[in-house]
Structure formats: C-alpha cells, structure tokens
C-alpha cells in the first residue's frame, strides 16, 4: 500500500481574521492542570495555596473522590490568615511539614499559587526557596501560579514546566543534549515518540516533564527543542533563556501533524528524507487507515469549537485537513500566534478564529451557525445537547492520549462517537 506522503504546505493564509472578545469565560483556571500533571510526575506533590473554591474546583474537575490518596491538596487560607492573626509563612511551613511527614515518598513539591494567594500577594517564590532549604536534598520545592486571574486551563501546565526549566540539570563536560520535547504527553505517546526518534538516529531525547523528579532532562545552550503542546508560551521563553533553540513545527496530532512534527526535527538535524520515511511511514499509513472509517462519518460535517485548552487550532487543522470537516468557528482562550503559525496557515480560508470569550454571544453565534458538532466544556455540553446539538466534551481531548500516529484513530473517534451515538439512539 502506498498512500500519498504529503509535505506540509508552507505559507498559507496566516492573516486569518481574529475576533477578540471579552466577557464571561466558560473555562477552567490553570489549577486544573494538576489533574494530569500529578499523574505524569509520579513523585511530585502539588499543594495549592488557596481557598475552599480551589479545593472544590480540583476535586470537581478531576470528577472523583480520589482513589488511594491523591498527590495534590489545598492549603486553605482562612480568616485568621487574612486578618493577620496567624503568621502566614509559619502556617505554610507547618502545613508543608505535616504533608511531607505524611508522604515520605514525595521528592518534589510544587506550591501552586491561586487567585486569593495572588490577590493578597503571598510570596510563594520566597516560600519555596525557604522550604527547599529546609527539606533539601530530600525534597525540592518549586512554585508556579495556576490562578484564574493569570492562567486558563492548560496555561497551568505551561507555568509548571516553566518553573521546572531553571532546575533542569546542566550536563557536565560541555555535553549538549541534542533534543528536548516540551509538554506533558501520555506515557504511551512519549514511548512511541522515543522509539521513532531512535529510528531516525536521535537516541538522546529528553522529555519535559520527566516521569520522576530525579530524571528531569538536561538542557544546555544549543539544545534544540520541539513543543508537543501549543500552550507552552512561558516554557518556551524559559527554554530560550537557557540558550535552547526552538524548532518551529506543527503539532503531532493525526498523521499529517505527526509527520510534520518529526519532519521539523529531521530538517533541524539534517537527517535525510529516507531516514524520516523509514522511521515514520508505517505509522503514518496506520494512522490514515485507522482514521478512514471516522473520515467517512465526519467528512463535510461542520464543527464549532468553544475555547478551552488552546489545542483548538491544531485540532481544527486536524479535523479539516485529515477528516474533511469544516470548522465554522475556532475559539481559543489565548492565541499563541508564534507557535501556531504553521497550524493557522493550514486552516481552510474563511475559518473564523476567536480569542477570549463572551460565552453568551458565542452561544448566540453557535445557535445561528447550527453546526453538526460542538466541541465545548462540561458546563455547556448537556445544555447544548438539550437544545438539540451534538457535542464533544473538550476536556476529554486533554485527558486522553491523542498525540502521535497510533492515537490518531482514537482522536478521530472522539469526534465521531457523539455523532455515531445520535444515529443509534431510537429514543
């Protein structure tokens, strides 16, 4: 079987008009990233310094009463802390000490800032430095902000990884690790990528974040990096500051996206086309085969994205280019133009991209557009279904392994399943 092996079209219509809106936003704050980050870094603990709302948000977003004992918690600020009746630094130290006593398995502790901690200007950076000194070398204490006033949803991961970068080891004797992949991936996708890079001759590839605190990838000036996620603005800046060099690329979603992503790496390292082909062609073909039945169901269907994870633009590229869908509006909470240049360039002409949100107005546009499929958050999905729309929960696109060739069919199925279900139900 010899399927066409397309190179990404360069250039394109990068001057797509952007609708910028502000108003009520139906998006999570950055604290939500803890839900997948704590699964990814297996000896890290995330301590939110915030309010009962923060604690309630995370447990609601995680959708669970957590299994055994979760590796996240909230240090709830109370009125005594606010009134200055208790010394807030001492209180935080007490909570951290209690926590680390309870969990001797923890090697890395993130103090995560929240809206209330930002508003009262609690200096978590200083607290992290102080606590790191107390608990070093057993536990490293870092901090970042996942507050809603500063971050939406996936920006929490961006802030977390950006905080990790300065603590990545610098290799001894002038060695320059060649390649780093930034962005939390599912373990299965990460392992697949590692194998493909090795097949291309890149056997030393670091992944940020690593699965344990002690194995964070080394970075040196001259290390090149690929982004695996589109929302890593601050992480990229931190990597640039370390002297790492960004490899512009599309994002590894679907067959085309994944091949384009690997191609960017081979181009950067001067690896031959034949080596790229040898390492990726089988995966590319499998991905297209797996997507074929979904493509039949989805081609020509109109899709509307509400803003959620910043994955919307790469996903719109994927569904239009690889599944033949027609994006009506692609909403994103924040448009990171520089990293998305190649993706925006491949959106069909006339696609409306919106940044930010006024949810009421956007719902009006959605109702007027009558799309076949609406990708939206959990707060909107059932109400829209009740109005007769078919919806896909966007959060599943973040929590499910979707990157790479072997997951392309699963990703396509996430879009086709709601439509499939509609056709099956007779009630």
């Amino acid at each position: 079987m010899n399927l066409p092996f397309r190179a990404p079209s360069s250039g394109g219509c990068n001057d797509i008009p952007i609708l910028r809106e502000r108003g009520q936003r139906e998006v999570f704050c950055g604290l939500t990233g803890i839900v997948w980050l704590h699964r990814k870094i297996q000896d890290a603990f995330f301590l939110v310094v915030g309010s009962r709302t923060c604690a309630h948000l995370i447990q609601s977003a995680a959708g669970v009463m957590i299994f055994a004992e979760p590796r996240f918690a909230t240090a709830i600020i109370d009125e005594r802390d606010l009134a200055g009746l208790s010394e807030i630094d001492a209180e935080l130290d007490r909570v951290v000490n209690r926590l680390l006593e309870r969990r001797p398995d923890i090697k890395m502790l993130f103090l995560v800032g929240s809206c209330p901690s930002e508003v009262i200007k609690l200096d978590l950076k200083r607290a992290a430095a102080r606590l790191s000194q107390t608990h070093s070398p057993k536990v490293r204490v870092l901090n970042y902000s996942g507050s809603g006033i500063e971050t939406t949803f996936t920006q929490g991961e961006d802030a977390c990884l950006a905080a990790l970068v300065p603590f990545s080891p610098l290799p001894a004797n002038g060695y320059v690790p060649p390649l780093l992949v930034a962005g939390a991936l599912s373990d299965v996708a990460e392992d697949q990528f590692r194998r493909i890079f090795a097949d291309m001759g890149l056997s030393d590839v670091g992944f940020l974040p690593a699965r344990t605190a002690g194995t964070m990838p080394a970075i040196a000036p001259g290390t090149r990096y690929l982004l695996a996620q589109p929302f890593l603005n601050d992480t990229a800046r931190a990597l640039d500051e370390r002297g790492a060099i960004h490899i512009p690329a599309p994002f590894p979603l679907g067959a085309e996206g994944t091949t384009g992503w690997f191609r960017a790496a081979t181009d950067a390292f001067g690896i031959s086309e034949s080596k790229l082909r040898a390492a990726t062609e089988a995966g590319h073909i499998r991905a297209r085969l797996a997507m074929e039945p979904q493509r039949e169901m989805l081609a020509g269907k109109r899709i509307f994205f509400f803003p959620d994870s910043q994955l919307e633009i790469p996903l719109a590229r994927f569904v239009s280019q690889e599944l033949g869908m027609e994006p009506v509006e692609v909403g994103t909470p924040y448009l990171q133009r520089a990293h998305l240049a190649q993706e925006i360039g491949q959106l069909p002409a006339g696609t409306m991209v919106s940044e930010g949100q006024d949810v009421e107005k956007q719902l009006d546009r959605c109702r007027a557009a009558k799309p076949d499929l609406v990708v939206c958050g959990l707060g909107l999905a059932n109400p829209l279904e009740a109005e007769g729309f078919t919806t896909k929960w966007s959060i599943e696109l973040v929590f499910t392994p979707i990157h790479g060739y072997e997951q392309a069919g699963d990703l396509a199925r996430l879009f086709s399943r709601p439509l499939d279900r509609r056709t099956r139900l007779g009630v």
Partner: protein
Amino acid sequence: MQLTLWTYEGPPHIGAMRIATAMDGLHYVLHAPQGDTYADLLFTMIERRNARPPVTYTTFQARDLGGDTAELFKTAAADAYARFKPKAMIVGASCTAELIQDDPGGLAKALALPIPVIPLELPSYQKKENWGAAETFYQIVRGLAQPRRGAEVNPRSCNILGPTALGFRHRDDLAEIVKLLEGMGIAVNVVAPLDATPDDIRRIPDAAFNVVLYPETAETAGRWLERNFKQPMTSVVPIGVSATRDFIAQVAKLAGLDADAALKAGGSRLPWYSRSVDSTYLTGKRVFIFGDATHAMAAARIAREELGFEVVGLGTYSREFARPVREAAQKLGLEALITDDYLEVEAKVAELQPELVLGTQMERHIAKKLGFPCAVISAPVHVQDFPARYSPQMGFEGANVIFDSWVHPLMMGLEEHLLHMFRNDFEFNDKAAASHLGHGAAKPAAAPANSTPPAQGGWAPEAEKELQKVPFFVRGKARRNTERFATERGINLITIETLYDAKAHYSR
C-alpha cells in the same frame, strides 16, 4: 491555614448557586475570577441538568485588578438583566472577589434595575456550602416575602422549604412528601426553593405553617418566618418509618387534623421485612454513620430502632449542626465525630472495624479501601445519587428504599447460614472460584489483611490452621481482632486458646 485533600462542602457561593439554580426567574450575578465557572458542571454533569445554571460570572483577570473591576461588575449585571430578564436578582462575590471588596450589593443597587436585587454576604474564608445555601434562601425569603393577603388562613395549608438543586434525593423526597401531605388533606401552598419563582416566594406567608424538609438549607428561613409571620414549622425530618410517623403526627397537630387516618393509610414494608426471620442476621450489626447532620441523625435512629443494628460511630461534617449530632451520639453512648477532614473519618472507620458503613460518597471510597460494605446516605452528591428510578429517602417509600439499599451490601441472611453449614465443603471456600464463572475462573484477589502482628512470636502453626476454618469472609476480621487482643494483653504467641479467648472477648 488548613491542609485539605478533599472537601465535603464547597465554598458558600456554591450554596447560593444551588438556590439560584433550583429556582425559576431568579438570576445570580457573581463577582468572580476566571475559572470559577467550573461550578456550572456540578449542575450540568452531576445532576444532568439540561440548562445552564442562571449565573453570570464577571470573570475578572489580573489585568483588571489595577483597573476598574467594579465597572466590570456593573456591566455584567446590566447585561445579565437585559439578556435574561429575571424577576429578581441575587448578587455577591466569590472568595477572590471578596478580597477586592467591590461591594456587589451597592454596585447593583446603583444600576437601579426594575426588579428586586438581593445582596448576599457570604464569608468565603469562614463558611461553607450548606451555610451559603441557607443564608441565600433566607435572604431571598426576607427580601421578597409579602404580608398575607387575606385575613383568613387555611389552617390546612403549608409550604415545603428546603429542596435545592444538587440535593441528595431532593427531587424524589419532595414528590413523596407532597403525596403524603395531600393525602392528609393538606394543601401545599409553595415549594421553595426548588422550582419556585420570586412570585412564589412572595406568597409563602399565605400558608398556615412550614414544613422544613432540610434544616441545613431551610431552617434559617423557617425561623425567620416563624418570628415574622407567625408560621410555625416542623422539626421532624421524615426519614425512616418512625420519623415519618412522628412527622405525620406533628403535621396533623399543626393543621388541626386527626393523624390516625394518615397513619393507617400509609405504610412501609420495612417493619415486616425487619421482623421477618431472614433479617435475624442483621441483629447487632455494627454500623458507622457519617454525613450531613440531618441524614446522619436519621440514619442513626433507623439503624437502631428499625433494623436492630448497633451504632458504633456517628458523625457529621455539618459544624452548624454539631450540637444536635453530639446529643444524638450521647444518647447512643458515643462521642460524635465532628470533622470535615476525611482522613480523620477514615482513621475512625479503620479503628472501629464496623460491619457496615453508612456515609457519603467519600465514606464509600473509605469503606471500599478498607473492605467494608457501605451504603450512601448523604451529600456531597455524585452522579450515582441521581438515579433514573424513583428513589426517595423520605416518607414510607423512602423507608423501603433505605431498607433495600442498606441491607443489600450485606451478606444476605440465608447465604450467611449456608456459608456456615458448608464452610468445609471442597467447592465452598475462598480458593474455589464462584461456580457460575466456570472452572477456569480465577479466584478474586483477597484484600490484603491490614494486620499488625504482635511484636514477636506471631501465630502458632496450629492457631493459623484453626483460623483457616473460620469462613473466609470474616477471617480477616477474626485475624485482626485476635491480633489486637494479643497485642493489648502482651501475648507473644497466638495459640488456639488465644484465638478462642479473643472470639469470646469480642462476642460479649
């Protein structure tokens, strides 16, 4: 500062949302940062509501803090009025907005909207969800209730106060109690907040008395109505057969009716099922109870009086109702566990080794982890707490539901006898797979015994062998009890004697 891994209640503005979402024609404008909209999914996903909660969030961001967040609030409130045309509005702040002190009440008043605007003060760093719901409902009632229109009051009329959105079985409890009251010849004037409009709230004083179904959400409003409109209120929550009977008697007295007819007409299968011989094995089962105050106290009474269990632990996360729960526990010779730290609850369950846990979804997890049967009796709610079938907790049908849902997790009586009779049968032991799974089926992994053997010695081989004769489903408990017995007495080597001494000790 309190270390919290998981919380039984949300912040107080979630309570306010439960009231707003329950009602029709009421809109809530919440001064809140980006991200607080997560709360919508509680209603659309857990309760499967088919409409968004009637809440507008101002969604301020860091860059707004230096600017005019107050203006942002005013715009949001004006836009919300223009779009949704509510009949009344409640306004307030979430935890972060409380810190920036914009005064949503004053700002909304300045807009001079042509509808009642009720300001809420919900101290987020001090209070929690149920308090927030009670306070919000009280403020709405206080803000809207109108003096009685006619001079004549129908003595056989009442309001039902308390059911909210996201309430534990509120939908079905309400249906059950409405049926019960109407069967007694009592007219239900207003149900609130569930499905009530602001106009309905205005009419609350028209009824003769109030039925307070859920004190957690409606007692504050009920007391205010009692003081200001001379409307007495019920104090019995009709969960369980005896409590339902007491409730009928109380309501009959308030309405000037004879309770006998209602008591004769209504009935539950629970009393007979509990007396039937198969239930003998329920006698003295040790139960641990934890939940909101109302459901925990009701469960304790049912467990003791209606099922013949022994209540070994009783507690609540509702600090506002700590006093009545302490009193109820004291009557059972127990000290109530008042906490919102589930780790403390878990430790208590592990210590007490109950045979049944009645709790919230969190206690269900705790019980699962520790290997005890469990039934859920209280909020916080989970998608499973909104079953498709009719499943009330209140009234006589509620007692039937409770009998089934508490007894089914336990080994059925006849089964327990059979296990005793056939425990040495070659197919009837822990190593044999369930017969319906065929011969190839693997036996389910046994839960690891959470045992602390004595410092030295441990089990003598013949004692260990004797232990294997104990039916597998109680073997873990026998092992733990024996080890505890040995440790407490400084016995180094557990012999057959120790095993039976311990058995005698624990069967007292």
